[in-house]
């Protein structure tokens, strides 16, 4: 009986995560005093809000890198918004936005790209569908 309950709970949580996808996707935020080092694969959104992050981040949802944050990482996410300092290779499956104060150092691949005046970018930029990339 216990196992059945456990299974039931398991399916239940699955259902919850689905509902989260429908509504609010999980979001993982790194605050000003937080720091993260290592490899992260995450289904939801990720935000670095003034924190420090280093490593490799593969995010199913969006990635926001706020003002004052420093990220040195390989980044992959759907929509990436940068307002802080980023160093490393970056892939945006959908759109990459570099805000006014953004400093991006590294190669960039994105389907769509927007760079606001004042942003700084150094590196190779590649745009378009990703099928084209390997070919």
């Amino acid at each position, binding site marked *: 009986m216990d196992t059945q309950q456990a299974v039931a709970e398991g399916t239940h949580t699955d259902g919850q995560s689905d509902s989260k996808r429908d509504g609010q996707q999980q979001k993982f935020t790194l605050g000003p005093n937080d720091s993260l080092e290592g490899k992260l694969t995450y289904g939801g959104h990720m935000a670095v809000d003034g924190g420090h992050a280093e490593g490799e981040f593969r995010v199913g949802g969006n990635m926001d890198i706020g003002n004052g944050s420093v990220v040195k990482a390989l980044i992959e996410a759907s929509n990436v918004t940068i307002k802080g300092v980023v160093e490393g290779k970056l892939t945006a499956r959908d*759109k990459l936005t570099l805000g006014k104060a953004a400093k991006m150092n590294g190669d960039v691949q994105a389907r*769509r*790209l*927007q*760079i*606001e*005046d*004042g*942003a*700084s*970018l*150094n*590196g*190779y*930029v*590649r*745009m*378009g569908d990703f099928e084209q990339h390997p*070919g």
Partner: protein
Amino acid sequence: MSEWATLSSTQARRPIPASADEPPTSRPADSNQHNSVTLGPRDRVIGQIYIEGDLRVSGTVEGEVEVTGDVAIDDLAKVKASVTGRDISISGQVVGAVIARKRLEVTRSGSLIGDVRVARLTIQDGATFSGKVSMGAAAEAPAKGAETKPVVVEPKPVAVEPKPVTPEPQAVAKPTASIVATPMPPPPAVKAPTVPPPVAKAAIVPPAAAKAPMAPPPAAKAAIVPPPAAKAAAVPPPATVGRSDGKGGKARNQPKKGKPKRR
């Protein structure tokens, strides 16, 4: 003043020579009046343009563009050139290295493929851009060196189309980079031929010469190989022989050459 008809809008001040096809190059720098050149949608320039003043392009430009003022590339424009200017705004298609001393803007209808050196960069959503971006200190220091480089690199593709010949060795690393990378990284390699563009042409010729030597060896192989070819000759399909032997189209020719001799 008709917008498209004149290359220079400063006619009133300075008498323009009969040959109005070329923008005035000897313009005195001290004049305060602004020189602005417009290339209309049906205009085409192939070669080098140097303009002291602003440039607006709506037509086709190939080669090299250097402008002391601002550059505006309109929606319908097609530019295959290295572009140097102060403020550069791109709404059309541009293929080539871009150097903006002040600011580069690619609007939502714009498309830019090429390396970029700028002080400030704006790319609107919807724009297409591929290439290497150098901004800030990285952009300013080597900028002068880079200006001369695209000069050399551009003429080649325009004059002939030996792209595959030259870039291959240099830009092997990245496929897309071949276009993009050419202007910047190869400088050292290119520099040697840089000074005399003719040298580049000379470089183009050799490959042909090189091809000749290339061809013989396969021919020799064919000569050596004859036994199998002869065997094949017994069997009707020579084409299959060519395919099996040949790695490329060249190989196909050899068996053919071989057969007539045997016949």
